[in-house]
C-alpha cells in the first residue's frame, strides 16, 4: 500500500465529488456522509459518462448522462443494469484524504 495525501475532507462538498488525475485515468472521490469518502473510477460503465457529476445518494451515485446507478462500495451497477466500475481504497485521517495509489496503478497494469 502507498497512501498518498490528496487533500482535505472539506475539499469535497457533502454528497458531492471531486476528481484526481492519475496514470490510470480520472478517479472520482465521493463524500457520502460527514466523514465518509469513497473512491471509484470516474468513467461510467455504460457510455463513459463522468460519474463525479452525478447525484450522490446513500452510498450510491447516479450517472448524469443516462441515470445508471452504481454502488460506491462494490462498484456494481444497481437494478436491471449490468456493469461495474473500479473501486479504490481511500481513507480519512485527521481530516486528510489518503488514496492508495498502488491499488490504483495495479488496476492499469
Amino acid at each position, binding site marked *: 500500500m*502507498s497512501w*498518498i495525501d*490528496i*487533500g482535505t475532507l472539506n*475539499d*469535497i*462538498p*457533502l*454528497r*458531492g465529488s*471531486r*476528481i*484526481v*488525475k*492519475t*496514470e490510470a485515468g*480520472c478517479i472520482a*472521490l465521493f463524500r457520502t*456522509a*460527514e*466523514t*465518509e469518502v469513497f473512491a471509484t473510477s470516474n468513467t461510467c460503465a455504460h*457510455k*463513459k*459518462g*463522468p460519474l463525479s*457529476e*452525478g*447525484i*450522490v*445518494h*446513500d*452510498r*450510491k451515485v*447516479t450517472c*448524469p*448522462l443516462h*441515470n445508471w*446507478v452504481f*454502488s460506491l*462500495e*462494490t462498484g456494481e451497477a444497481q437494478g436491471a443494469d449490468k456493469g461495474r466500475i473500479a*473501486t479504490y481504497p481511500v*481513507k*480519512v485521517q485527521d481530516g486528510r*484524504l489518503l*488514496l492508495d*495509489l*498502488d491499488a*490504483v*496503478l495495479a488496476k492499469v497494469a
Partner: protein
Amino acid sequence: MQKMVIIGAGMASGRMLEHIHESDPDAFDVTIFNAEPRGNYNRIMLSPVLAGDRSFEEIVTHDDNWYADNNITTRFGERVTGVDRERKVVIGEKGEVPYDKLILATGSSPFIIPIPGHDLPGVVGYRDLEDTDAMIDASAIRGSSAVVIGGGLLGLEAAAGLRMRGMEVTVLHIAGHLMDRQLDETAGYLLKLDLEKRGIKVITEANTKEIIGNGKVEKVLLDDGTELAADIVVMAAGIRPAVQVGRDAGLDVGRAIKVNAQMCTSDPDIFAVGECVEFNENIFGLVAPLYDQAKVLANTLLGKEDVFTVRELSTKLKVTGCDLFSAGDFAEGEGREDIVFRDPKRRVYKRLIIENDRLIGAVMYGDTADSNWFFGLIKDGTDIEEMRETLIFGPSFQGGGAAASDPLAAVAALPLEAEICGCNGVCKGDIIKAIEGGVTTLDDVRTKTKASASCGTCTGLVEQVLAVSLGDDFEIKAEKPVCKCTDLTHEDVRRLIKAQELKTQPAVWQELAWKTPNGCHVCRPAINFYLLSDWPLDYQDDLQSRFVNERNHANIQKDGTYSVMPRMWGGMTTPDELIAVANAAKKFDAAVKVTGGQRIDLLGIKKEDLPEIWSDLNNAGMVSGHGYTKGLRTVKTCVGTDWCRFGTQDSTGLGIKLEKKLWGSWTPHKVKLGVSGCPRNCAEATCKDVGIICVDSGYQISVAGAAGMDVKMTESLVDVATEAEVEEWVTAFVQLYRENAKYLDRAYKWVAKVGLDWVKEELSDPDTRKALVERFDISQSVYQKDPWADHVSNRAEQYKHLADLTLEAVT
C-alpha cells in the same frame, strides 16, 4: 515492596487501583499525584452536577478515607513537572518521589480554539469541577447568556445544563448537523428540534471569528457578522491527550503516548492508561475502553497475562428528553446496506447498517429501548440473515409477526391544525370532524368542507385522512409516489411541506417517513425545488441535490464537455457582445451555434475552463442564459414597433422587461416566453408557456402552450391594456406555477391538472395577484443573481481536479 507512582488521579487510574487492591493490596507502595486538588471522581457525572441534578459529593468515587484505608500516599493539587528516567524519580511541584513502576494517567485537556479573545476571563473548557463551578457561577446572574462552541457530546451536555440553570444558551457547531461524528443528518435534525424545544438556540455551519470583551467575555462574533451576547463561553470543540510529561521524558509519542497491548510505553518500567494513550493508531475519549485498559494494566503489573483489544463503542447523550444512540461503524468498507425506519408521529428514527449479513452500525433517535440488543448484535457479529426483514423492529419481533412500514404514517402524524387544502384553508381537524359527522367518501368531504374542491392537488392527502380515520372501509386510488423513497405523491409532499413548515431536507425525510437515509436522484432535486420555492429566505439551496447542468451552470455534452450560452435579452445583442462571444469562442476553441431561442451557444468547453470563459463573458457585461435550468429560459421577441410596419406595440422592449423581471427564478420545469408585435406572431408566442400578442388595444396574454414532445396552442388568460399589467399578470402566473406544480410538469401539464378556470379565478383577484408578485419578488431577492459570477468568485476551486497524481510513481 515495589514503589509505584501514578501521575493523574482520574477515572482510568482509579479503576486500575481498585483492581490491584482487590487482588493484592500489598503488592505496591503507591504514591499518586493529581493536578486537580482532589482525588478520583466520576467525571462523566459532572453533567448532572452542572444541571443541578446531583451534588459533587455524590459523584466522588474515592474519598480521603478510601485512599487512607488503602495506604495510598496522595499528592493532590500538585502537578508533576518532569520525570528523570535515569534516576527513576518523579518530580512534583513540591519535591521528588522515586519509583520502580511509573504510571502515566494524565487524561486529556479541552482543545481551546486559538481565535482572538480565547484567553479572556470567562472562556472555559469543560473538563473538571473548576470548569463546572465557573459555569454554575455565571448562571447565577439573572438573564445571563452562554455561548457553547461545539455541538458534540460535551458541548450539548454543557448547553443543556446551563439552560436548566436558566441561562440563554446558544450552541455553535461547525458542521451541518449536531454530533456529526456520531449521528447522521436525520438524527441530528431530531436532536436539534428537541434542544430547541427546551429553549436552546442552535446554529450549525457556524464559524466563530472572535470572542470580544473588555477584561472579560462580552460577546462572540461569527464569520457572517452575527453577534451573540455572552457572559460565559464554553469551548467544547474537542480534547487533546495530555502528553507533555511523557514527551518531555522522551517516551515514544504519536498523537498520544504509545503503548503496547500490555499498556507498556517505550520504557519497560513506565506504563500509561486512559485518554493519554495511543494504541494501534487509536486514541480514546469514552470510559468503556479505559476500563478495559485499567484491568489489563492491573493484571500486567501483578504479573498476570492479559491483552488489551479495541472494542466497538456506543454513544448516548446524558440530556433528559434527547434519547439517542449510536454505535459501530459508518465509514469505510464494501458491500453495505441500510435499513431505515421512521415514525414521524413519535419522532422516531432508526437506521441499521449491514455488511455481509452482520450488523456493523446503528443510529437511533427517539426510541432507544432496543439499543443494547442491537449493540450486542454488533459486538458479537451475529449473523442476522434470518431476521433481516424484521430486524429493525427489535427483539420482540423476532420469531414471528412481520411488520411493515406504514404508508399512512406521515398523514397520521399530522396535527389537527395542519392545513390540508391550501385553496380553501381546510385543516386536517375539519376533515376529521366531517368524517365523525358521517362522511365516508371523497365527494362528501368536498361538499362538506370544500377540501380538494378547487385545484384538487390535495386530493391524495384528503384520501389519506379518510383512510387513517375509516381504516379498511376506505380504499385509496393508487397514485404514483415520487419515487421508491416514499409512498407520497409530489402533490402530497408539496402540501405537507407547507402545512408542517418543513424547511430542510432532513426534516422532509423524517417527518414524511422517507424510506432511505437521504433520498435518491429522483426525489432530491424535487424536494430541493419545493423547499427553495416555498421558503426562499430560510432554505439553503443544495447544489448536491441538483442535476449536473444546474450544479455546474452549463449543459453537459455526451463527451463530458459543456456548452456555454449567455443571455441575449429578448434576442437583442450588440457588436461589443458579439466580439466578446467571438473572442471567447476562439480562445476556448468552441463550436458556435445560433439556437432556436434567439441566442448563441458555445459548445465543447472543458469543465476546468468554465470559470475562465464565464469571467471573460461577465467582463463584457453578459450573464448566464440559464440554458440548462428548470427556470426562465428565453423570452423570444420580434422586432415590433421599432422597425416592423405591422408592429402595434414595443414587443422587443416588453420582452426584455419580462426577461429582466423573471430571469434567475427557479421553476418546476423550464419556462419560455414569446412576445409578438402583432397577430402574425413572428415570435411564435402562441406555443410558449406564456405568450403575449400585441394588438392595437393592448396585450393578449395566453398561457400553457407547448412545442416540444407535445404541440399545443396557448389558451387565453386575459387581455390587458398596459405593459405594467402584463408584467403583473405574467409574474403572478409564474409564481402560481412555482408554488403549486409538480416538479417536472411543464406549465401546460399543470394547467391541465388544476384547470384553467381555477388559474383564472385565482389570478383575477387583485389581492391574490399582488400577493403572488410580492412572494415572487422576495424569492428573486435571493435567487436573481448571475450564477456565473457567483461561481467564479466563490466556487472556482470546485471546477478543478483535487490532485494530479500522473507523475507519482509506483512504490
